[in-house]
């Protein structure tokens, strides 16, 4: 950890704080393989790429609701069929503050990070930012967390993530 103060952490780029050497799925990988990979890597989400260009994101929630709840066979279902295919991504040059604001606004807690050529170079999660002591993480988490009582006024439900800008 560098000696930067908390006020300057927010101005660092996500390229400096992201998880590097990301593992990505292929759209043709089965959901069963994706689940084994999530187990092995101890993650809840994986980017889906072709030639390191992001085609989508697959989460353990997608597997639970779009495959298991739907009665589909994970071994016979492709990642491409159940992933979210419009994925908001961050640029490695964006500031942490900007990415945190995006997470709160669009209600997601992880973003693939792209280089100048639009290729995947990392993942940044709310957890990464929290671990680095970035202020404002609590606000972002509150924006994307659902309270325990369904009948309580809640934040707007998470919309499908907009297309890559």
């Amino acid at each position, binding site marked *: 950890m560098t000696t930067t103060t908390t006020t300057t952490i927010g101005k660092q780029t996500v390229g400096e704080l992201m998880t590097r050497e990301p593992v990505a799925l292929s759209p043709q990988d089965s959901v069963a393989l994706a*689940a084994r990979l*999530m187990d092995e890597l101890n993650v*809840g989400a994986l980017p889906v790429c072709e030639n390191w260009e992001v085609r989508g994101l697959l989460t*353990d929630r997608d597997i*639970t609701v779009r495959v*298991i709840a739907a009665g589909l066979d994970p071994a016979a279902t492709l990642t491409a069929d159940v992933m979210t295919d419009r994925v908001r991504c961050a640029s490695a040059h964006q500031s942490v503050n900007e990415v945190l604001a995006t997470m709160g606004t669009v209600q997601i807690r992880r973003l693939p990070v792209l280089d100048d050529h639009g290729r995947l170079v990392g993942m940044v999660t709310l957890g*990464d930012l929290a671990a680095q002591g970035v202020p404002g*993480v609590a606000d972002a988490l509150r924006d994307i967390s659902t309270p325990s009582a369904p009948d309580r006024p809640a934040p707007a439900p998470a919309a499908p993530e907009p297309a890559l800008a």
Partner: protein
Amino acid sequence: MTTIAEIMSRDVQTVAPEDTLQKAAQQLRAMDIGSLPVTSGTRLLGMLTDRDITVRAVAEGLDPQQACVSDVMTQQVQSCSVDDDVETVMQQMGDAQLRRMPVVNRSQELVGIVALADLALKSGRHIDGTVRDISQPG
């Protein structure tokens, strides 16, 4: 001092240990939440999450229409008491890396559930520390 009883939700949806994973997944989908307490009557047996289904059933090739909740749930449940104060529970959720925690009464019966969002809404202090503790990088 604010106790958990004052901010928890008493309307707790639960799932049974003998329910199939497909049925449990449909319940998670319908309720738009990521975890459910597993109960037998009012007795808390465990918690079931999207992750449990994914890594303990799908990754292992279990049939979701045959396997049941008790096969994959987490049995060692971190719970809190109605009498606990909010600060204590926030610390506990941070240590255990949980976003939702069931609440039990003095007889160990499930009486409510508290989510990190509830704590965030009601107490603005020390949230960043808790979030840091429960959020795993990557």
